[in-house]
């Protein structure tokens, strides 16, 4: 993606970039600049990440001993519910799209902003209002249904603030929908001259696929939660058999959104990895079209496999078989991506900078997460491991080992662009190592626990499971440290970090062809794209 190179590390004039162009709270809260809105999201999701982490810490402390001795059962149940709700709906779903996607999509396609800047700001406000409802519920005693809100527990039995929490998630859903819509329209209409679909960076492709899911899937969860609220308040028999409803119907509706939602969480991270692997291998991606179409295939097939969460819910054996078959199909595009990233490294010029370390971690851990997904798609095995710690380990390998590693890798990669400062490389590598070790120590023992039969969401457990739980808790403490360190040095670098050049990694990405941090309009001169993405070698070398 060749474009005019801006001379590097020119001393910046005051007030020439999006950060210092205007000061004051109002200039942030009323901004329409996608980059500033991205930072608003960054601050909010960071808050929720640490809040969710605090709940996780308490969960792990409780599980240090077999007896339920640290907190009451009711409190424990609220902790894991709020951990799940906060991490999924208020951190992971918005994380990469709303922060990095928001910041980078316009820059990657050579645009000034998203198609609807006001709508973008509105999305953030909607998110905050939704979060406020859920936080109200948390502060006023919490909710204990599990993030899955299964009926009739959530409609007839649970005693927490189910409705407030559900309203919060319902509202936040609109923020997702609007962001998705904004991305889709932007990608369709605002690409720079010469930037054809197959010249788009893979980060943009993966966000395009993610946006499709956001727009098509989120309304379903919204309606489902509305139904839960209606049944709880007006006793309309939708799900509760005592009122003439069907309890399993809820699960169909819930997973119809929530399975695709897991791809909302991982597809953007896959996009980050495609960018990082190419930049730090200095190579064009192996199999560009396969990687791009894999994202779309995942988004489409992802809508057809929800029943794999319900293999033991009494659904028909034949339905189970179809869902199992389709679940195997959805794993194939993920495998294609992993193979292509690995092949991209072959004969590259591999730099061991922090973003690439996170990419290595991502590839390894996502592979394990994806492969264990195959265990779960295998009917005869899922019957045993369903609702045990095996599931917990599976999705944490993907969501924490995959998505959060991708997010952190991306944050390090684009930090110079976002902040105009370099992060301290030594500390960053050290933190990446700590995260990797802590992560595996936390979640690997959970596979073993799960196959042994320890059910998930257990406040107390039989004593023979203790050793593995202690390992997991120890790992969680290490992991926690690994997450706090980057927080500190990112903040530190804002003030003390070295000034970042426009393109510290010598990447070909369009976003690197402008100053760091960029001016409000991103590119002083609108760029024109004349070649494929990721062209590092000269023309003759590519051919030869």
């Amino acid at each position, binding site marked *: 993606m060749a474009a005019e190179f801006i001379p590097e590390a020119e001393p910046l004039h005051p007030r020439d970039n999006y950060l210092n162009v205007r000061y004051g709270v109002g200039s942030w809260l009323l901004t329409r600049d996608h980059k500033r809105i991205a930072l608003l999201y960054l601050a909010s999701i960071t808050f929720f990440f640490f809040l969710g982490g605090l709940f996780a810490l308490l969960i792990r402390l409780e599980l240090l001993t077999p007896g339920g001795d640290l907190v009451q059962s009711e409190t424990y*149940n609220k902790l894991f519910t709020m951990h799940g709700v906060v991490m999924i709906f208020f951190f992971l779903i918005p994380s990469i799209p709303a922060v990095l996607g928001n910041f980078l999509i316009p820059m990657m396609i050579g645009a000034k902003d998203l198609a609807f800047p006001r709508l973008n700001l509105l999305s953030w406000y909607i998110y905050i209002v939704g979060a406020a409802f859920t936080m109200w519920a948390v502060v006023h005693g919490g909710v204990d249904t599990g993030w899955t809100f299964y009926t009739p527990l959530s409609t007839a039995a649970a005693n927490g603030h189910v409705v407030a929490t559900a309203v919060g998630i319902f509202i936040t859903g609109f923020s997702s929908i609007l962001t998705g819509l904004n991305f889709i329209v932007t990608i369709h209409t605002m690409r720079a001259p010469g930037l054809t679909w197959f010249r788009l960076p893979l980060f943009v492709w993966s966000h395009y696929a993610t946006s499709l899911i956001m727009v098509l899937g989120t309304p379903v969860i919204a309606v489902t939660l509305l139904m839960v609220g209606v049944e709880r308040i007006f006793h309309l028999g939708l799900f509760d058999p005592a009122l003439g409803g*069907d309890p399993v119907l809820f699960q169909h509706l819930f997973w119809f959104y929530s399975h695709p939602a897991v791809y909302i969480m991982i597809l953007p991270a896959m996009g980050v990895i495609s960018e990082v692997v190419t930049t730090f291998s200095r190579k064009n991606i192996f199999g560009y079209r396969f990687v791009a179409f894999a994202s779309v295939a995942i988004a489409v097939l992802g809508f057809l496999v929800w029943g794999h969460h319900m293999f033991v819910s009494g659904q028909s054996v034949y339905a189970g078989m179809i869902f199992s078959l389709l679940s195997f199909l959805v794993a194939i595009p993920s495998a294609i991506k992993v193979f292509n990233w690995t092949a991209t490294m072959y004969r590259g010029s591999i730099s061991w900078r922090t973003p690439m370390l996170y990419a290595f971690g991502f590839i390894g851990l996502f592979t394990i997460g994806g492969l264990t997904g195959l265990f779960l798609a295998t009917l005869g095995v899922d019957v*045993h491991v369903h609702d045990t710690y095996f599931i917990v380990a599976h999705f944490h390998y993907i969501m924490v080992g995959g998505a959060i590693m991708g997010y952190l890798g991306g944050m390090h990669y684009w930090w110079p662009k976002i902040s105009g400062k370099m992060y301290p490389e030594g500390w960053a590598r050290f933190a990446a190592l700590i995260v990797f070790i802590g992560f595996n120590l936390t979640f690997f023992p959970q596979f073993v626990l799960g196959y042994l*039969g320890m059910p998930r969401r257990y406040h107390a457990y039989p004593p023979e499971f203790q050793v593995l739980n202690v390992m997991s808790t120890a790992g969680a403490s290490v992991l926690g440290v690994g997450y706090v360190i980057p927080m500190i040095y990112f903040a530190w670098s804002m003030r003390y970090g070295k000034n970042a050049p426009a393109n510290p990694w010598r990447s070909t990405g369009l976003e690197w062809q402008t100053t760091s941090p960029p001016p409000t309009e991103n590119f002083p001169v609108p760029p024109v794209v004349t070649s494929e993405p990721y062209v590092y070698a000269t023309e003759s070398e590519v051919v030869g």
Partner: protein
Amino acid sequence: MRPDLPLFPSQASAMAPHVDALYFYLLAVSAFFSLLIAILVIFFAIKFRRRSEDEVPVGNEGSLKLELAWTVIPLLITMTFFVWGAKLYFRMNRPPNDATQIFIVGKQWMWKLQHQDGQREINELHVPVGTPVRLTMTSEDVIHSFFIPAFRMKMDVIPGRYTQQWFRATTPGDFHIFCSQYCGTKHSAMIGTVHVMEPTAFQAWLSGGSGSESLASAGSKLFQQHACNTCHRNDSQARGPNLEGLFGKPVQLQNGQTVTADEQYIRESILMPSAKMVAGYQPIMPTFQGLISEEGILQLVAYIRSLSPSPGSAAAPSPGGMAPPVKNSSPEREAPK
């Protein structure tokens, strides 16, 4: 304290070794691919590490052959998982005809279990080695899930319907029963023990029970208490269909459909009689929703089932537990309102 570190669950049912074999196959394939990727990534990262800031490697050209290979090979491998897994699942969901019946009612936060012969247990289940056992389960409140890890067996227990699963225990001993579907405050206390016993010990345990009556005969009492017999009788005054020989037979419905009279159908006929009307009858049967407990309904079902002795079925009337057939029930009971 000696740290106890089990790494693999005990195998105590006929199904367990099959599930484990498939699990090991999955493990082997996964280990192969994880190691392959890990080794390649590490090897490339070292071998091709950047040696000078200015080096620019040759670009990729891609390879359709490779792309096809790593699409088709994983696809074929996953199809082996699919077929093997589906086969086991099919077997798990097809109880043999001669299985002994046990009825389970889950409620927040306990398991109530009843044997065919009437023994009742709470959070405990005694079963003999070698005999297939079929569990018919329902819940009084929210969804639970009945899970015995040592049997590699699990099925949700759902209010308003029956679910089933079966097992054949192979190893005597005590094993965990867990509720695995989150069901509220004391979910983690909804646990129990299954005692797998040698057949002789099991017989001794059965006869040691305190003179409990069989499920079917308890059901027959309920049948009279609730005056079902005023309508369901086989004389000229019958206003409802004769229930003798009903179980397991096809029933012609008013809307032209045919359904098989299984547990689920009988339960529904008692709680929601108008949902599936039998052809040729008036909608006069009152609903018993809220009047009979889930356990009572299970007893009624067992009773109605016992009216149709089917060959080889464990539901065939057991000696002593034999319930009186409908025609013997007192004809002079008044009809319900």
